[in-house]
């Protein structure tokens, strides 16, 4: 069970970093000039946004991996990464609403990034629904890989079309224009969310692999037992 130990270590580091990062973000970093203390939500919001995109990127790569290799491992990784991505995106939207209410005065706004996140969430929720509704393991793997590829390709298209449609979100703040104290806290929090996401993806990957392998085989063993 070396795998489990490795995962647990990553998860533990993630939790510690999360604690440290939040302490820094809440008590050490200076107050955000425009938004005040509300702005401190950025220490979770921005890392969650980055890592949710990263999860979907992993799912996309896993889908391509399944196309070329056709193995259960890739299918399981795709299942795991899509689910973690969906959870992170839901969290992202909830955090975004919490921030938007005091800042913009509304819970929801048709800003490009917000809309893209919502559409992305729906598209990948569709993938999880598809996985539940197909019985054959090979059909399920192939079809959900197709849906994952399409959902991923869709993300930039939605982003640019909504951006054209209307734009009032503040421009993406790059770490160089803000206070160094804020940058450090943000980086620590980003690594925290990254490690926690890796922990969940790896754990979920292992569970999915076990379940899928049980579903598919072990062929020889079963054939022999029938012969006995």
């Amino acid at each position, binding site marked *: 069970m070396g795998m489990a130990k490795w995962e647990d270590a990553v998860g533990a580091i993630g939790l510690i970093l999360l604690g440290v990062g939040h302490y820094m973000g809440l008590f050490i970093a200076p107050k955000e000039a425009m938004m005040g203390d509300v702005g401190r939500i950025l220490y979770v919001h921005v890392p969650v946004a980055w890592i949710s995109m990263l999860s979907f990127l992993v799912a996309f790569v896993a889908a391509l991996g399944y196309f070329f290799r056709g193995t259960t491992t890739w299918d399981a990784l795709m299942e795991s990464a899509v689910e973690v991505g969906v959870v992170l995106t839901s969290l992202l939207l909830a955090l975004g609403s919490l921030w938007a209410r005091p800042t913009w005065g509304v819970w929801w706004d048709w800003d490009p990034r917000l809309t893209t996140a919502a559409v992305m969430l729906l598209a990948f929720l569709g993938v999880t629904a598809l996985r539940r509704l*197909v019985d054959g393991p090979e*059909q399920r793997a*192939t079809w959900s890989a197709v*849906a994952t590829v399409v*959902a991923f390709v869709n993300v930039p298209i939605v982003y640019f*079309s909504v951006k054209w449609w209307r734009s009032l979100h503040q421009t993406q703040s790059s770490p160089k224009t803000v206070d160094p104290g804020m940058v450090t806290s943000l980086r620590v929090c980003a690594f925290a969310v990254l490690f926690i996401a890796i922990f969940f993806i790896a754990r979920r990957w292992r569970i999915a692999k076990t379940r899928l392998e049980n579903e598919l085989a072990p062929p020889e063993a079963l054939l022999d037992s029938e012969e006995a």
Partner: protein
Amino acid sequence: MRQVWEVLRKDLLIEWRGRSRSTGVFFFAMILLLLFSFALGPDSQVLRQHAGAYMWLSLLLSSTLALSQSFRIEVESDALTVLRLLPVSPVSLYYGKAAANTLVLLLLGVASGPIVIAVFDVTLHAPIGHLLLLLLLGCAGLAAPGTLYAGITCRAKGQEILLPVLLFPLIVPAMLASVKATTLMMNGDPMGQGRSWFILLLCFDIIYWSISGLLFAKVIEE
């Protein structure tokens, strides 16, 4: 190319022979348009402003019926099995079916045009050719991912719900562009923005017509 044409011809022939079903889809689209206009109320200013949006919404909702229909005929008596054994490549099969679906949706759009004009009190500020081109591009945008996903959902459990769940999030950019461009045509386009929406829609079509054609082989082989 010949195979694409043969598949297209086959689908259109079946669609024509089974036209009582297609008229059902048409009535569904009409009823949606009427319901939308009731929901908006009698203010003709509001109706005119939103005509484009509701025209495309009714087309989108009816398209799921037409799209799943186009694969139900293949699956209900296992004709898909026979097709797979014929010397028809999956790519030709996809483009043939997607083209047939585009034409069916285009016909649906053209047929609902007069109803939109009458019920929503619309005057057209652009040449009719532009609107037809827009309809064609929009229907092609619906049909491309729609044909791909209908090929999946026709063989999954709960196909009625799965097709819209998978399709609608993808359609957002195409819908946005079609609705915007149509609204500009119906309410005047002083800033000349219509062109950029056309381009967006065209890009969407090109992207989805290419990747769906590649992915369809994977879908059909399972």
